[in-house]
């Protein structure tokens, strides 16, 4: 196998007649140009033409986008919303922290008006959430946990021990056996190896 082709930003990769532009590329005047320094990858994805993209050591997605699943840490709560720091987009860690907000009405899908934020999250909790909007000038990213798979994945009890989920809305401290309320995520099997 010949070594993979490398490119730098600005390099012309091919014509649009040969490939479909993928990540790390830009379309101009019927040609596909690289926008990243990396390896040139052609992949056939069942379409007529292969997809051409430029890949680097980490995934290209750097910013939380609408629809992305993010892992975040709760920093503060009040009756109307919880503030979080976004740590991960998908499985890519972010180098810098982005702030997000989970509003009361976005905590769960049912009985939205009965949600109490302090019975759903506590500062320090690790939460899985989905981006619903990039927010406006004043606000941060808006996130939701209104799905079964979303919500608290790691939480510590008042005694400081890591708690075990016992239902979708409760977690228990293994040391004191005290129960605390949380909006618990039904953890998908692929995350269980942690």
């Amino acid at each position, binding site marked *: 196998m010949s070594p993979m082709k490398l490119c730098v930003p600005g390099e012309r990769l091919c014509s649009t007649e040969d490939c479909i532009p993928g990540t790390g590329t830009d379309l101009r005047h019927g040609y596909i140009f690289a926008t990243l320094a990396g390896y040139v990858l052609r992949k056939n994805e069942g379409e007529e033409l292969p997809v051409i993209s430029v890949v680097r050591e980490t995934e290209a997605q750097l910013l939380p986008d609408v629809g992305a699943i993010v*892992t975040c*840490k709760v920093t503060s709560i009040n009756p109307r919303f919880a503030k979080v720091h976004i*740590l*991960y987009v998908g*499985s890519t*860690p972010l*180098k810098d922290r982005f702030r997000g907000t989970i509003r009361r009405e976005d905590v769960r899908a049912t009985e939205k008006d009965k949600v109490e934020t302090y019975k759903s999250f506590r500062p320090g909790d690790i939460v899985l959430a989905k981006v619903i909007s990039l927010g406006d000038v004043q606000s941060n990213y808006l996130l939701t946990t209104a799905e079964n798979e979303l919500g608290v994945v790691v939480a510590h009890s008042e005694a400081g021990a890591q708690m075990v989920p016992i239902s979708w809305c409760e977690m228990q401290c293994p040391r004191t056996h005290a129960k605390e309320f949380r909006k618990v995520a039904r953890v998908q099997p692929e*995350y269980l190896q*942690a």
Partner: protein
Amino acid sequence: MAAGFKTAEPLEYHRSFLKENCRPDGRELGEFRPTTLNISSISTADGSAMVKIGNTTVICGIKAELTTPPSDAPNKGYIVPNVDLPPLCSSRFRAGPPGEQAQAASQFIADVIESSDLINMEELCIEKAKLCWVLYCDIMCLDYDGNLLDACIIVLLAALKNAQLPEVTVNKETDLAEVDIQKKRRLKISRHPVGSSFAVFDDSIIIVDPTAEEESLSTALMTVVTDEEDRLCAVHKPGGTSLSGEKLQHCINRAITRNKEISKLVDKVIGSMKATK
């Protein structure tokens, strides 16, 4: 999800390594990162050096200027060290005037220069009460990955050893200074202070040469500076959790062996430089 654990619960992540007497980067608790030294790379400076401890990189350039001696010590000169942590070296620093850490580091370096008698300040005087040298030792961090103070002391020492001052005479008739840049002399560096930094984890575990992440997770930091006669020039522990006398002694012993290692490195690099000239 090992990476996930690291970001979400960094302290637990580090503890899990310390339990096994090792660290996330594969070092033992008492192991320093590889230290390298480069000198004379900046030709616009009168003396310069660059030190790398692991990823941490600092550069020091010395500029010598002429001024009048301080009024309370007319037969001495000045050394003005300043440490800068520009936003280039880490995302934790912002542009603008130096923050607390940079200021505390500058003061610490100034204290070490004074405490260790690194250089005889009278050597910097050209004519009593009239003319003397001021050595501006500007230290910049280019990559901040912890243990700034150790790196700063080494880089300062090496840059001072590398520095050459032009010959200055005061013209008797005009009463003005005359500089001859063809004739240069080196400074006499009488002492070899070397620092060793330690971080305390969970009030009991001591590690040497902490990285930036280890520094931020630790409960206390300490820097011990010794000279070549094994005397202490500074025991700097700005606070944090307490340390028993026994642990302190352990740190001092480690600092003494570190001094030998670094002195050897500095002498070797300075020596090789002189040999090639």
